[in-house]
């Protein structure tokens, strides 16, 4: 009932992308704006509806940072109410095990600490290189530099790798507070400056890394290459990361080794993703587009071109517009999607 509490935001968890993204974006925005929210029909269309452990982990981390009152934070719960308190900067440690990814937890809580008035240090231990979550390198090399141009002061460091299923990795984020963010315009990539492939192996034969790199090289002969052999006990794990650097910034494409899937197939997936991006005039790929929307909304201005208007992007847009007085306009611009954020009202 909006009449009772005009600040309450009501969300439909099954709308749009219908997964954990809506919940994570809502948590971040509630922390920043102080507005409570209720989300219903959480993951209603999924095989296992309701909150899973990884979602609970994000809720608990967010609640810890802003001393929130939470109702319905239970496994399988399809409804959650989150009443945030004031965000408190400081030192936090979250041990999430293999239930979810460190990157997703950091993306949820860090924006609240950017403007928190004091320095923070957040350590998240668990999976750092998991399927269906951005790897550490994406956060550090693609996301953080663009945020820096908007005024965000954060540095990320990887203390230990954590692969699925063993986990055991750790990322530490340091945040210096800033007064506000500035909008930026990312409409031109500029010239391609560098391509570099990195193959990580832990407890997996070295030649797997070599075969992955060979496949990348076959597609992009100019790309640099590195094999990083991690200690056996951090494994088993294998990831292939391809960094594509233009004048405007960096994109990171990744693939993860899996039992029963050949090194060539993994490399091929990464190559295809990079090719699609390179063939597009857009500045950012789908994943980075998702993550730029929120800081631009906080700045109250900004624009970029993205390879596509993904379901995640559209869900994010809807949640952001529900919390913040901004409007986000999407328009097709040649083969890319032009996204423009501006203050509304």
């Amino acid at each position, binding site marked *: 009932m909006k009449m009772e509490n005009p600040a309450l935001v009501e969300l439909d968890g099954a709308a749009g992308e219908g997964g954990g993204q809506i919940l994570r974006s809502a948590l971040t925005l509630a922390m920043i704006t102080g507005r409570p929210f209720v989300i219903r029909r959480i993951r209603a269309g999924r095989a296992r509806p309701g909150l899973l*452990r990884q979602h609970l982990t994000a809720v608990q981390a967010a609640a810890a940072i802003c001393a929130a009152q939470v109702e319905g934070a239970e496994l399988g719960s399809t409804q959650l109410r989150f009443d945030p308190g004031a965000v408190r900067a400081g030192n936090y440690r979250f041990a999430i095990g293999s239930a979810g990814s460190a990157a997703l937890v950091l993306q949820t809580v860090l924006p609240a600490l950017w403007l928190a008035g004091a320095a923070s240090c957040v350590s998240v231990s668990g999976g750092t290189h998991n399927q269906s979550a951005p790897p550490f390198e994406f956060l550090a090399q693609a996301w953080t530099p663009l945020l820096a141009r908007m005024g965000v002061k954060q540095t990320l460091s990887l203390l230990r790798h954590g692969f699925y299923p063993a986990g055991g990795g750790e990322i530490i984020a340091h945040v210096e507070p800033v007064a506000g963010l500035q909008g930026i315009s990312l409409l031109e990539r500029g010239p391609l400056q560098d391509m570099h492939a990195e193959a990580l192996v832990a407890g997996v034969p070295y030649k797997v890394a070599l075969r992955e790199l060979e496949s990348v090289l076959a597609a992009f002969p100019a790309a640099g290459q590195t094999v990083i052999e991690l200690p056996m006990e951090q494994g088993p794990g294998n990831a292939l990361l391809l960094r594509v650097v233009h004048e405007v910034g960096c994109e990171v494409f990744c693939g993860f080794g899996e039992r029963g899937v050949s090194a060539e197939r993994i490399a091929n997936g990464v190559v295809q993703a990079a090719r699609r991006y390179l063939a597009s005039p857009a500045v950012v790929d789908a994943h980075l587009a998702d993550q730029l929307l929120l800081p631009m909304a906080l700045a109250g201005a900004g624009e970029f071109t993205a390879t596509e208007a993904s379901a995640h992007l559209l869900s994010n847009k809807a949640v952001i517009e529900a919390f913040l007085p901004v409007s986000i306009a999407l328009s097709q611009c040649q083969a890319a999607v032009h996204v423009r954020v501006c203050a509304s009202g």
Partner: protein
Amino acid sequence: MKRTVVFGFVGTVLDYVGKGSERWEKWRPTVGLCQQADLLIDTLVLLHDERNRGLFSRMQRDIAQISPNTEVISHEINLRDPWDFEEVYAALHDLASAYAFDTEHEDYLLHITTGTHVAQICWFLLAESRHFPARLVQTSPPIKRLGQGPEGRVSIIDLDLSRYDKIATRFAHERDASLSLLKSGIATLNPSFNRMIEQIERVAARSKAPMLLCGPTGAGKSFLARRVFELKRARHQLTGRFVEVNCATLRGDAAMSALFGHAKGAFTGAQTERAGLLRSADGGLLFLDEIGELGADEQAMLLKAIEEKRFFPLGSDREVESDFQLIAGTVRDLRAMVASGEFREDLYARINLWSYTLPGLAERPEDLAPNLDYELERFAREHGEQVRFNREARERFLRFATSSQARWRGNFRELGAAVTRMATLADSGRIGIDEVDEEITRLQAGWQDDQTDTLRELLGDAAGTLDLFDRMQLEQVIKVCRECRTLSEAGRRLFDVSRQEKSSSNDADRLRKYLARFGLDWASLQGRD
């Protein structure tokens, strides 16, 4: 939110997949249990022995890494033989007894995938008996085809079967069918009768102990005994035959021989060996009706046969074996017979464990209508002819049959006879008002005759000189006397209340004096039998 606490064994086979990093790619039930996206375990109590401390510590470390919020506790038990049912059950039972369960704040699961099969069975039994207020949790290996990771799958099984609609419905159907069988498909309405049948169903399913059916003649004792037999046979609890005998028909040596059999040449005329009823009932059910009529020797033999499942046939020095379910029936009050020394106390104690009193038809007026339908069906079955009441006739008959006028002294047998008569006399398969009226007259006359005849036969014309008050009292006294074996027994029954106030009661004398007032004595009453 309740905390989740899991008990389980360290799987010395399944959880042990080596120490190298490749262990993470293998399915380990206990580790996988802690890695489920939709199950969060707060406390995991892992049972293991001394030799597996190392494996426990490694698992504890691995679980800390993948599920940092799970507290893993070691519970060391040293089983001499983990395949020994008694030992494992005792160990787990001890664990349950010692654990401070807090079901208000904690939710308990028993992990059944690890441990021996014996452990699995014990977990099941302890959960089923609620020694562990827990549900069972089963882990299973990943289905690779479906892209499941090494953590595999988990399913939680709640033994509270009422939660499983399909199974519960099936059990309910089975039970309904059993009850219906015991009631011969008659939808009886009398609550105390139905309660009794429900208990008999449960006892029949779970116990092999003898049953005792008391009640007036025609109340359906023999009928019920046969139904119990059919129920037990349908459940594969009995394989043998149904053997029925009315003990009142057995007398002397013939009684011994009929019950326990005899060897060839055991007595004059015993030209061949005879198995006897007890041996014929081996593996089946023996229904001894009117058990109070058995002589002292037969009672003694029967007791031995029930207790030891073996006995000596007449004239044989070789014991034979027979294992049968016994149901005894009686019209007489066996307790009083024990008190007067006519029935063995030890035999009574043996057969009195499950004792049921079948009410007569007059005490179950609400069951008249369903029994009437049953009798019509039975007639149709036996005579191949459908007979129905017309509506008015049926109402009139039921009104009479459930009124206080209807004494139903012969109970269900008498109702059956009434229906047979009406159905036979009915034209074109319809029982009308006329047939009903005739039958009512017939029944009333029968009950009337019964009384006047008794007094007239004993007192002659003098019966006509008695007040109705005296006639009614005397009729009932004579009825009791004829149900009893001795004057003393009858006296005890008739003066059952007042005798307790007297320090030395002479009930027999009181009764003798009462009878003498009408010129009657004990011998003259028994003479008619």
